[in-house]
């Protein structure tokens, strides 16, 4: 899976996620990538793109859960994303991670498994790429 989230200079958010899946997956199997609210979501609070064990991301509505925690609990992007990846997905065999951004341009990149590839950039800062 690959994905991107962005906050533009107007404070508008967007998310995009594309094609992944387990090697040797069953033909016709669809993971969380195209499921809005699971692997991909953008609203006026945050934008989220996930990568990982898709079935678990779907069952727990991972991306929507982050937005809901921010909207209703007032959590920061970091806190909400961290909670979902480490305390919702991980205990339920939901290995993987996500990238997320909020309307203030804050970025969160949590993951709970190896083999992760990340990059981020903010206006006025140098771009960062990383492999774990």
């Amino acid at each position: 899976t690959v994905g991107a989230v962005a906050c533009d200079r107007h404070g508008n958010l967007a998310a995009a996620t594309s094609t992944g899946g387990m090697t040797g997956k069953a033909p016709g199997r669809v993971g969380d990538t195209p499921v809005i609210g699971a692997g991909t979501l953008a609203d006026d609070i945050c934008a989220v793109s996930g990568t990982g064990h898709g079935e678990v991301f779907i069952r727990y509505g991972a991306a929507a859960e982050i937005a809901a925690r921010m909207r209703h609990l007032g959590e920061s992007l970091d806190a909400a994303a961290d909670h979902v990846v480490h305390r919702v997905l991980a205990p339920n065999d939901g290995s993987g991670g996500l990238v997320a951004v909020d309307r203030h341009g804050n970025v969160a990149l949590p993951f709970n498994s190896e083999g992760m590839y990340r990059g981020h950039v903010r206006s006025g800062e140098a771009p960062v790429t990383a492999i774990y």
Partner: protein
Amino acid sequence: MSQTFALAIHGGAGTIRRSALTPEIEQATHAGLARALEAGSLILRDGGSSLDAVTAAVCALEDEPLFNAGCGAVFTSAGRQEMDAAVMNGADRRAGAVAGLFGPRNPIRAARAVMEASPHVMMIGEAAARIAREAGLPFEEASYFFTQNRWDALEETLALRARGETSSDAAVRHG
């Protein structure tokens, strides 16, 4: 129009095995990620939309064989590649998604075509491919999406299953 812009990307999970992560592959992976960041941030820097930025960034990632989307997509157990993608615009909650189709060079553009050229959110299979064709998107043959690394991973996975084993390698557990 003075707010901070931000862009974050991911190249998936487990698409490159640790044992195969040579300095050359590591350098190529960083370069691939940097190209995607540049594609998206160029748009944001000029005041463009987050929607255009994520589309451009994901296209760059899809074009990169090191990551398992589009070019280098994972194989199903039947030895075929199926593509999924979704895009969502937070300002108005427009969304487009495609699943279970094959052929568009950039599946994310097919998802965006569903969002912009249809009243629907998700389309699957041949109907999704038709919307992509009608939007004038380029399609590719199977050879374009083939990478030896993904094929080797499939053969290894099928061999493990035949022996009743599972792999702890993230590369064969999820994308």
